[in-house]
């Protein structure tokens, strides 16, 4: 073994997780300390404390959980499909969650029943997951699963558009459109309590799949020979994605690009090992979403630019840059 060939990647690997973890803590603290009220971290009780606990804390916790969940989900799905272009929306869960929430808005239920919006989202995510499972069947192959996901997504998008089309008044339409953009603004601790158990349970399931995605690198036959039960893995993955992505979309709408970009950026830093990419993407996703949400409050404190718009605005050029970079390093 020639030493100088191995050292090139090892230092990054050793420092990656501590650096990411410190990043998460730092951005979480920053997200608590920064906001339009101009308050820093308060010394004691009072109005400033209230701002912190009632407004910034839920927002920061949700950003942390949703970012972590989306990053992890993207890494798992890319590992399962062995395709760097896969993203969590692919299996139809976020489409279903959006539809459920939009229906809550459309029917006016969200104005009268507390938490009707996220509950509608959760119901939508659950129904979409069942739909995908029924369509694809229990012994489904990879392609069937994706086709079922796309079919369910398409139906959900069509029905969401129909709800928008039939909006009772322009305000309702605007409300729906804004919600669809994805945001963490004005979420309360109740939202946290509602979403956190689902997201945490989902992440717990997804984190068990590290060895499975490692083995799948060699293809399904070799992975099976290495002891992987592919259909069991698929069920765990679908459940994990449904819980994580569904609950995220139910409380925050669709936050684009996180599940796609984060694994992509971190992959070279874990020497492309899909199993190690899972915890890395979890931390990276939290940094991206919390960072984008905090940045938003610094740059445009009063404009109410939606988080999903920012992640897409940051994500798209970054993705283009990655495409150009990949094109120049890979043989045609």
């Amino acid at each position, binding site marked *: 073994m020639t030493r100088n*060939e191995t050292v090139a990647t090892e230092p990054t690997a050793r420092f990656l997780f501590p650096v990411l973890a410190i990043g998460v803590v730092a951005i979480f603290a920053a997200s608590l300390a920064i906001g339009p009220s101009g308050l820093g971290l308060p010394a004691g009780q009072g109005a400033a404390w209230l701002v912190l606990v009632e407004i910034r804390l839920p927002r920061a916790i949700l950003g942390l959980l949703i970012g972590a969940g989306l990053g992890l989900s993207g890494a798992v799905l890319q590992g399962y499909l062995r395709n760097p272009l896969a993203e969590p929306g692919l299996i139809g869960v976020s489409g279903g969650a959006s539809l459920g929430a939009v229906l809550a808005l459309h029917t006016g239920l969200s104005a009268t029943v507390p938490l009707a919006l996220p509950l509608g989202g959760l119901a939508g995510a659950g129904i979409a997951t069942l739909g995908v499972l029924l369509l694809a069947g229990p012994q489904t192959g990879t392609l069937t699963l994706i086709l079922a996901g796309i079919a369910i997504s398409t139906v959900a998008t069509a029905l969401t558009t129909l709800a928008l089309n039939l909006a009772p008044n322009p305000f309702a339409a605007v409300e729906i459109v804004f919600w669809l953009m994805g945001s963490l603004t004005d979420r309360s601790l109740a939202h946290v309590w509602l979403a956190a158990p689902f997201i945490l349970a989902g992440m717990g399931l997804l984190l068990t799949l590290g060895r499975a995605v490692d083995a799948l690198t060699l293809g399904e036959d070799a992975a099976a020979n290495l002891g992987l039960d592919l259909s069991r893995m698929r069920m765990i993955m679908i459940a994990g994605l449904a819980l994580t992505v569904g609950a995220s979309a139910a409380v925050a709408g669709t936050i684009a690009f996180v599940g796609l970009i984060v694994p992509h950026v971190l992959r070279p830093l874990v020497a492309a090992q899909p199993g190690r990419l899972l915890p890395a993407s979890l931390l990276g996703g939290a940094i991206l979403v919390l960072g984008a949400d905090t940045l938003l409050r610094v740059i445009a404190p009063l404009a109410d630019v939606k988080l999903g718009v920012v992640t897409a605005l940051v994500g798209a050029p970054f993705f283009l840059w990655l495409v150009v970079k990949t094109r120049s390093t890979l043989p045609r």
Partner: protein
Amino acid sequence: MTLAIHRVTVALAGRTVLQDASLTLAPGAIVGIIGPNGAGKSTLLRTAAGLLAPRQGTVTLDGRPLADWERRAVGRAIAFLPQERTVDWPMRVDAVVALGRLPHRGPAGGMAEADREAVAMAMRATDIAHLAGRSVGAVSGGERARVLLARALAQDARFLLADEPTAGLDPAHQLAFFAHLGRLAGAGRSVAVALHDLGLAARFCTHLLLLHKGRCAAFGPPSEVLVPETLEACYGIRARVGDIDGVPVVLPIEIVT
């Protein structure tokens, strides 16, 4: 200590691709699976590895049906090297080889000393130790084939089932591969290897199984299977079979129409 396929019939997408095929792998055997394209070589190996369920017949490991074994126990007993040389991510070469240790490792925790040793040994056997820190995306096709072979060797299983492992290897590495198979067999392991190179099959295999249209056309020591009449009947070729200085040689001459 045997892996036995007994009169299996396997259908893929409704088409019977293997019919009434049998093969028993006993310790010390190196069985070459030969036959024209589409004869059922890969299907036989995949069935023996428990990756395909036969429609009829049985596959048993140490007398017990393969399906009754725990998956990871099968992975420790049987190493399967597919024909497709898939490595979907540009992982490090040593990390790819280390995947072969997955069936041996406990549910949590990293690689133990025994795992590291098996990986290092497999990499030496396939002459890829110098590639350890490189990305598999940055090695040649033949080197990649050796990396994947090393993964299967690192699995340290009693049975090695390899589907065209030497295709694309240079002559030196082909010879090195069969020398290693000889060492494995000498240590009481058994090997089944699908091959197209009849010369290598003649020289290094203890037995040959010739498949033709999904059926076993011949089985026995290479000298009994590799005879001109059989080759003509199955491959549709006229071939010279002989030896040079005691080394068996099979030379395909022309297609028989």
